[in-house]
């Protein structure tokens, strides 16, 4: 039996092939990273100094470009002084995979340097709260407005032209204004998340609502539904599955505003942790923190996807995930 070709157009893969490729999707970048980190002849543009020799500005543990090291080495060679020694190393901003793996653990267990600083889990929790409030406030306003816009042309015409325009104003540009109005703590951060999310949200949701099969609305009208019943008993239940999917995507977009939002006013949350660790040159912690954001985002999205399948049992046969 000949096996199916790997590249057959629009044909689904076998489960085994799917698993293999998913694994490779993460494994290959990891292998490249490991190769660059562990094989001295790939990249490694610096030399880490183990013995400074007679070079007066060299120190143990310091990193210097290979050419400069070579120059000093040659100078010492000619002058007959003690030769500096070192090994090839990557710059400090590219930690090795194992260093980042360790940092995942140590970043949580290491006590903050100053007592006023937060633990990592506190920083993470702060970031999650900022996202939560920004997204929730946006949704409280944006979802009803989107649904009404998608249902009633008059509402749409009144709001959407302005919203279409406002959407192009970059949220971070409002940073200084937000601080002036809301202070320097959590207020402006939540505001930036809100601005980044709200305008897209209204447009996406009104579009989704407009796509609801009009035959369902007509059927409801011939069954005596008045306008209020149409909205609450047909439109809202009808768009709920797609609305849920839209909200998941919008939440993902809200996350992308997190870093920028947290830089406004006083630094806080995971962004504070990252910038702080970068100052201390602990780039393994920086890498670990960035990955944590990604992992939290991905896991929460998968969880919401699972939940979505259970909430809407009638969407089974229409396979549009």
């Amino acid at each position: 039996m000949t096996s199916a070709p790997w590249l057959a157009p629009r044909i689904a893969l076998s489960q085994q092939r799917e698993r293999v490729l998913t694994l490779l999707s993460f494994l290959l970048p990891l292998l490249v990273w490991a190769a660059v980190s562990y094989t001295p002849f790939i990249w490694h543009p610096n030399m880490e100094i183990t013995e400074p020799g007679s070079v007066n500005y060299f120190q143990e543990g310091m990193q210097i470009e290979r050419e400069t090291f070579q120059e000093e080495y040659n100078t010492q060679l000619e002058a007959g002084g003690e030769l500096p020694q070192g090994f090839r190393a990557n710059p400090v901003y590219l930690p090795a995979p194992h260093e980042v793996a360790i940092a995942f653990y140590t970043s949580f267990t290491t006590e903050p340097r100053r007592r006023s600083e937060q633990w990592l889990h506190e920083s993470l929790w702060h970031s999650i709260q900022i996202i939560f409030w920004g997204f929730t406030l946006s949704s409280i306003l944006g979802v009803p407005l989107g649904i009404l816009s998608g249902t009633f042309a008059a509402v749409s015409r009144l709001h959407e032209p302005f919203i279409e325009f406002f959407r192009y104003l970059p949220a971070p540009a409002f940073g200084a204004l937000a601080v002036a109005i809301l202070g320097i703590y959590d207020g402006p951060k939540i505001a930036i998340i809100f601005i980044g999310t709200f305008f897209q949200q209204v447009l996406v949701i009104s579009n989704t609502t407009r796509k609801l099969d009009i035959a369902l609305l007509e059927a409801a009208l011939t069954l005596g539904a008045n306008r209020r019943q149409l909205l609450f008993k047909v439109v809202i239940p009808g768009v709920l599955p797609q609305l849920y999917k839209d909200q998941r995507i919008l939440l993902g977009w809200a996350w992308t505003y997190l870093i920028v939002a947290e830089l406004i006013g006083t630094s806080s949350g995971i962004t504070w942790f990252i910038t702080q660790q970068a100052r201390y040159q602990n780039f393994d912690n920086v890498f670990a923190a960035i990955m944590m954001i990604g992992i939290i985002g991905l896991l929460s999205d998968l969880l919401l996807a699972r939940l979505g399948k259970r909430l809407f049992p009638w969407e089974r046969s229409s396979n549009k995930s």
Partner: protein
Amino acid sequence: MTKLDLPNYKDQSPEVKARFDDLKQRDVILDVKHLGKIFDSAKGPVTALEDINFQVHRREFVTVIGPSGCGKSTLIRTLAGLESATSGEVLLEGAAVSGPGPDRGMVFQGYTLFPWLTVKKNVMFGLRNQGVSAVEAESEALEWINLVGLEKFAEVYPDQLSGGMKQRVAIARALAAKPRILLMDEPFGALDAQTRSKMQAYLLEIWRHIDITILFITHDLDEAIYLADRILVLDAHPGRVSELIEVPVSRPRAPEQLLQPEFLAARQRLDELIHPPGQGDEEVGKLNMLRFAKVGEEVQPQN
């Protein structure tokens, strides 16, 4: 091809005649007077319906048929109130209607069951809109579900039903809202032939047992005759009433009647009205010379 020796479609046996006399004495449920509908299109105004006049009596079954583009769908949507007439009026039991409502129930061709509701909740929908309590609505809905033979599927979601079952639920849902007339827009058009004939039998059974008037649109000539007391035949471009045919076939209807002379006479008349000779026959003529050729044989032109 020889034409069958058929009676005149206007000849009615005594029992059929008696039935029609009785029918015409009953109240007029639907009175359509000089109904006209003009659409605005990119190429200017298009007259979809022009001066439509007809009456439907209580418990009558009227089918509407015509060539494509004759405005059948526009007509039924205007009667349902989903479109507004440009001229004329529609009277339901003497009162003018505008806008949709449960007094004119509708069954659509596509499946319009609410996918987030079970069969039972779907059927309860119209009743709940009217303010009926949940308990009452539920028991009434179950009665209707029994009537269409779907008791076992009351708690099932529509996506698990076959096409025929979905339309049965749609009929139950429309009837549960207690309409004065049931409008049906090619409800069996999307079903396969066997399901369609089963559904026709179902519909006639339901209609025989309850006090409901039905206006039914179809493009299938046999279906139009099989179901109806009278057939409203429309002309196309613009949509106008061509003829109102009284179906000379006796009731109750049975599949054997499809081959009876009265049935065929009516069918012949419908054929004449909807596919008049001289339109499109040129295409068929050119194929005639291929009729007797076997596969592989060379075809010699006949002239």
